[in-house]
């Protein structure tokens, strides 16, 4: 959906210089790190869930990931030479998840070397999930969510509401149109307009992280 097909012609719209979050962080904008934390903590948490981390471990994970990107002076430390930001960010999360799992206490053994508590096997480091496919989808969803948040602030609220109810909540377009006091044709136009804008914004955001 963030593919480049059917995206509106960029020349139709005035080019607005929009400082990306990464640019603001590199410029040392002090509020940007709060924005960074708020934007990405849900993804970090979700990844931690994939690795079955406890709440306490999730706290560690959040701290470790944030500390990996900021120095003690609050300076952003990501260098583009490390790779695309989105890819690098996910790798950092995964590596800290594995590190946290490895910190768990080893299994106690009896004299014969057998594990005393088989229930602890589920915490073994051998059970690291294969998360590549879900990582890509989670990243896409994060980008989409950011695009949607921006659209809610910039587009007509009725149009956005129409789109969200029809396309995200799966309500019948006829019912949505009636409740909003618009024709069915208008409801479809609204959905189309918002969806095209969403795809465009998502593509812009995706490019920022590459």
């Amino acid at each position: 959906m963030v593919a480049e097909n059917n995206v509106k012609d960029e020349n139709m719209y005035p080019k607005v210089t929009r400082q990306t979050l990464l640019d603001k962080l590199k410029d040392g904008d002090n509020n940007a790190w709060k924005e960074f934390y708020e934007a990405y903590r849900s993804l970090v948490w979700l990844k931690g869930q994939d690795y079955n981390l406890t709440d306490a471990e999730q706290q560690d994970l959040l701290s470790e990931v944030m500390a990996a990107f900021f120095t003690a002076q609050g300076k952003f430390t990501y260098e583009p030479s490390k790779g695309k930001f989105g890819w690098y960010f996910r790798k950092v999360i995964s590596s800290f998840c594995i590190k946290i799992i490895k910190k768990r206490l080893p299994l106690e053994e009896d004299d014969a070397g057998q594990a005393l508590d088989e229930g602890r096997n589920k915490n073994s480091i051998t059970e690291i999930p294969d998360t590549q496919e879900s990582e890509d989808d989670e990243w896409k969803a994060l980008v989409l969510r950011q695009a949607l948040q921006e659209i809610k602030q910039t587009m007509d609220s009725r149009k956005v509401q129409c789109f969200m109810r029809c396309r995200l909540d799966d309500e019948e377009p006829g019912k949505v149109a009636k409740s909003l006091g618009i024709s069915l044709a208008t409801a479809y136009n609204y959905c189309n307009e918002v969806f095209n804008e969403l795809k465009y914004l998502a593509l812009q955001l995706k490019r920022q992280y590459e």
Partner: protein
Amino acid sequence: MKHISEIDMERYLDGTLSFVGRMLSRHHLSKCNECAAKLESLKKDRDELKRLSSIMNDLDDADTKSYNVTCESVTQYFSTESAEDDEN
């Protein structure tokens, strides 16, 4: 040959076209590769949106859970930076 409009394609997928509209569209789609490809692309976009929408709900849940869990070291880390800014 008159192609199917984008709105009518949406309505075709939603099942909100009239009976006649649906029959005519189906007939056209069987003969027009361009419209068939556009419909397929539209369907793919919608399916992906639905799939990602479900993950967006998971992210919203994760937001709530991570907000509720006290993250002392992280908030302390950012508070230190904020205090230094206030001093400056």
